[in-house]
């Protein structure tokens, strides 16, 4: 997989037409504004210029006109002055020196006053009579002509300005220039008859340089370019009379052809009084105003160079232009900047996109290259076009070898048969997953799962992309699972325990063989039925309640139910189960084990009944025993009571008899009566002892912690009386506390001590020792005396009831005391024994049950 698709991309960012349009509009607006401003300024300027020029022109016109008028006027004075004419006539007729001088003087005065270049007096024949200056001006044909004209017309004739070729002569204008003059011819007229006749002509020659031209130059303002031209039409051209300012044209040198409409001189030449723009003789654009000098053929042109006019304008225009340019440039710069930025951003994005694309492509490349699955790209005939690295390792072919193969070739023969079918389906659906078996280069087969997709590209070409996964392991795992499944199923089915699987409604989903065997049903009958159907009535209710109570939990606690088998028998089963809830909380499965507990229950029932029976019997026996005890108690009570009554009587009456009939009684009789009384006492004691003895066994044992020392002391206190003033030495050794019934223990000590006291009565110094020995974790309590003792031979008889080892007359007693002691000790769970030696003394020992003692 090495190809990455390339699509043509625009190289530059798209022009944002709206933005461009806006920019353009903005620029246009700026331009328009500029233009408008310029236009308005220009208009203003034009207007001002026009006014200015008009003013100047008018002024100049006035000036020139005035000058002309003045000059003419001056000359006309001559004409109009008959005196002059007469004098001159006089002179002419009679030219004597005096008149000559006078005329000369007059001519000189004329000359100097009016600053004429020269003044001449010409005769009617045209002869120069006088001239000032005398070397005079040239008199040429023109002069003669015009003089003649003047003579004839008898009017002042103006020659207009005409050039004279002279040698370079300094004029008042300074530099060498072509001389130009203008002559006035004033005829001298003398009256003759009713008219006048010319007698001569005075010619004044004016150098316009002197006053005319300067007047033209001096202007109301100092303008560098302003020029005033006096112009007269001269044939096809306009002739500029005065010297040009900006070019070295001498007066009457500059001729401008009339058809050159651009030149304002031509307008004046044509006789137009106007204002306008034109181009002058320099080719420079000018503003010009033209006028006509009245009473002349002259025209006046006042012109200003456009440049001058527009200089401020140009300045401003320059500024405006600069501003506009600046704005333009700025705008352009901004636009460019924005453009650049956009471009940059675009390129950046492009770049990033490209990078991403690259990365993805790389990624994809890597993925496919290093993928764990085989990725193949095939054409529509399943020929392999591309294979990833995994394919190489999986099949064992090299890349090149793979590229020559088709997928069909890689498939096992069996799988190949399925190909057409797969292809059809794949084409239909666009994607297909199927299993197949493929061949490696070495001929081994391995199972694959193929996920194929169709890819259609422009041009209608179809490709198949396949991702093949080696499912060998999966298959093995499946096989293992199947095997495991089979084994478990076996276990399940053949288990000796009954399994059942139920759903959330208590219906049986599955049961194992043991279940079926035990119940006698077959699987078809059982599955789908509710479990309760197989229970007896009582159990059904129990089951229903139990089931709904446990449903929400994960464990179903043990419950015993009665199941009905097919043959009608009822068995008791103990059901325990585990509940597994589906993850979505919707379903649940209940896995149960049923244990047949019928026998157990029966056994239990029996045991229970037996126990009950036993209990009953025990209670009965106890009751009986209690009754018996009560009877015995009553019996003993009444016995003792009833037996004592006659004894009292015997004793009582005997006593009374002895008391009241003492005189009648012999000593022997008294002795007999005393014997009678003694015997009654004995009997009474017997009865007491018997009663006590019998009561002993019935009395409940109230074991408690007791201090034997205290009891011993109490007992000794009670027995004090029986000591009869004897001196008995009591040795009381420390006796540790023990667990015993206090009253009974007291009885024990009373009896033992009483015996000890009794049987040591014959000894002069009796020593009675009481104490406790510790022997092999046993506590042995003892009462030791040094009395008469006893023959060990008869030791067994000691504790028998009514058994005595001594004669009553030696030692009184009924023989019950020790029996009572034994009874008590045995009830405490202890042992009692005695050791004795005749005449040396006896030691009586007992133990109390240690095991149940609590310290």
């Amino acid at each position, binding site marked *: 997989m090495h190809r990455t698709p390339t699509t043509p991309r625009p190289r530059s960012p798209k022009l944002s037409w709206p933005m461009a349009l806006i920019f353009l509009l903005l620029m246009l607006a700026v331009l328009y504004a500029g233009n408008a401003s310029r236009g308005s300024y220009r208009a203003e300027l034009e207007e001002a210029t026009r006014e200015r020029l008009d003013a100047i022109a008018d002024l100049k016109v006035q000036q020139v006109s005035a000058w002309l008028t003045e000059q003419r006027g001056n000359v006309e004075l001559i004409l109009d002055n008959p005196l002059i004419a007469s004098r001159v006539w006089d002179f002419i007729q009679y030219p004597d020196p005096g008149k000559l001088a006078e005329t000369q003087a007059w001519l000189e005065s004329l000359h100097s006053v009016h600053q004429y270049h020269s003044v001449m007096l010409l005769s009617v024949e045209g002869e120069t009579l006088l001239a000032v200056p005398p070397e005079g001006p040239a008199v040429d044909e023109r002069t003669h002509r015009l003089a003649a004209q003047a003579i004839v017309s008898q009017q002042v004739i103006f020659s207009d300005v005409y050039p004279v070729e002279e040698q370079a002569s300094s004029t008042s204008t300074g530099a060498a220039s072509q001389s130009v003059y203008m002559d006035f011819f004033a005829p001298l007229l003398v009256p003759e008859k009713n008219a006048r006749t010319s007698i001569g002509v005075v010619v004044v020659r004016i150098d316009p340089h002197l006053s005319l031209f300067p007047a033209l130059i001096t202007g109301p303002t100092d303008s560098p370019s302003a020029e005033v031209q006096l112009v007269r039409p001269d044939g096809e051209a306009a002739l500029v009379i005065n010297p040009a300012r900006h070019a070295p044209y001498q007066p009457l040198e500059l001729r401008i052809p009339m058809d050159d409409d651009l030149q304002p001189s031509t307008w004046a030449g044509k006789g137009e009084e106007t204002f306008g723009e034109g181009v002058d003789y320099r080719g420079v654009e000018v503003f010009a105003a033209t006028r006509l000098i009245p009473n002349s053929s002259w025209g006046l042109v006042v012109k200003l160079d456009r440049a001058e006019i527009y200089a401020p304008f140009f300045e401003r225009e320059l500024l405006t232009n600069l501003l506009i340019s600046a704005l333009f440039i700025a705008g352009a710069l901004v636009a460019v900047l924005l453009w650049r930025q956009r471009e940059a951003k675009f390129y950046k994005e492009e770049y990033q996109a490209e990078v991403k694309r690259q990365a993805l492509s790389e990624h994809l490349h890597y993925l496919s290259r290093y993928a764990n699955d085989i990725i193949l790209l095939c054409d529509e005939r399943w020929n392999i076009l591309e294979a990833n690295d995994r394919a190489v390792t999986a099949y064992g072919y090299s890349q090149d070898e793979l590229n020559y193969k088709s997928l069909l070739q890689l498939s096992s023969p069996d799988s190949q048969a399925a190909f057409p079918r797969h292809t059809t389906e794949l084409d239909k659906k666009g994607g297909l997953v199927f299993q197949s078996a493929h061949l490696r280069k070495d001929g081994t087969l391995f199972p694959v799962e193929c996920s194929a997709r169709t890819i259609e590209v422009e041009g209608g070409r179809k490709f198949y992309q396949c991702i093949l996964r080696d499912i060998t392991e999966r298959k093995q795992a499946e096989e293992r699972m199947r095997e495991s499944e089979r084994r478990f199923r076996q276990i399940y089915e053949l288990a000796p325990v009954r399994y059942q699987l139920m759903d959330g409604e208590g219906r049986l989903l599955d049961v194992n063989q043991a279940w079926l065997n035990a119940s006698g049903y077959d699987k078809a009958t059982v599955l789908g039925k509710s479990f309760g159907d197989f229970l007896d009535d009582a159990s059904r209710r129990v089951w229903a309640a139990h089931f709904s109570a446990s449903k929400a939990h994960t464990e179903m606690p043990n419950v015993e139910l009665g199941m009905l088998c097919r043959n009608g028998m009822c068995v008791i089963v103990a059901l325990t189960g585990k509940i597994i809830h589906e993850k979505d909380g919707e379903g649940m499965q209940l896995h149960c084990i049923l244990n047949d507990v019928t026998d157990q229950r029966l056994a239990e029932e029996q045991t229970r009944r037996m126990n009950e029976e036993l209990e009953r019997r025990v209670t009965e026996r106890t009751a009986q025993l209690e009754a018996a005890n009560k009877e015995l108690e009553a019996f003993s009570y009444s016995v003792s*009571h009833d037996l*004592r*009554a006659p004894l*009292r009587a015997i004793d009582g009456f005997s*006593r*009374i008899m002895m008391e009241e009939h003492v005189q009648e009684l012999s000593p022997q009789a008294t002795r007999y009566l005393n014997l009678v009384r003694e015997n009654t006492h004995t009997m009474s004691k017997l009865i007491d002892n018997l009663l006590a003895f019998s009561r002993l066994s019935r009395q409940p044992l109230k074991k408690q912690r007791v201090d034997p020392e205290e009891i011993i002391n109490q007992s000794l206190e009670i027995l004090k009386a029986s000591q009869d003033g004897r001196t008995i030495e009591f040795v009381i050794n420390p006796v540790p506390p023990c667990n015993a019934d206090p009253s009974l223990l007291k009885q024990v000590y009373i009896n033992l001590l009483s015996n000890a006291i009794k049987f040591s009565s014959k000894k002069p110094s009796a020593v009675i020792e009481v104490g406790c020995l510790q022997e092999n974790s046993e506590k042995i309590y003892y009462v030791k005396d040094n009395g008469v003792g006893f023959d060990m031979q008869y030791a067994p008889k000691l504790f028998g009831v009514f058994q005595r080892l001594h004669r009553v007359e030696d030692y009184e007693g009924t023989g019950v005391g020790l029996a009572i002691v034994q009874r008590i000790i045995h009830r405490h769970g202890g042992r009692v024994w005695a050791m004795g030696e005749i005449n040396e003394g006896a030691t009586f020992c007992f133990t109390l049950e240690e095991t149940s003692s609590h310290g």
Partner: protein
Amino acid sequence: MVDGPVEILLVEDNLNDVELTLHAIKTYCPSNHVKVARDGVEALDFALCTGEYAGRDPRQQPKLILMDLKLPRIDGLQVLHRLKNDPHTRAIPVVILSSSSDPNDVAETYRLGGNSYIVKPVDYDAFLQAARVLGTYWLQVNHLPGV
């Protein structure tokens, strides 16, 4: 025979014991001031002035009642119970004279309100001494109500 005020009511069914007792108390109470009832019923009838003693003056009550527990018909404890529950006889001290030394009897006696419990010894000498002490205490030393 009783004539005169009854000082002591002796409740005893055994004739021997009656004689012996009378003999014992005669030093401080002559027999003619002792009323002997042979069983519980008679004792109660007498004390409560009911039955065959219905006509007896209830204000004439004995100063002391000596009673055996073992009695036919109604036994001593029952009589004691009745006596101590009846306002007319409650105040009369009751001394039980019994041959039984059964602690239960003793306990019950006191529980029922009996004033004293004496065990009748077989030895008549001891009995004589007991009777003397009894009489001295109850009839002389002890203050009886209404006396």
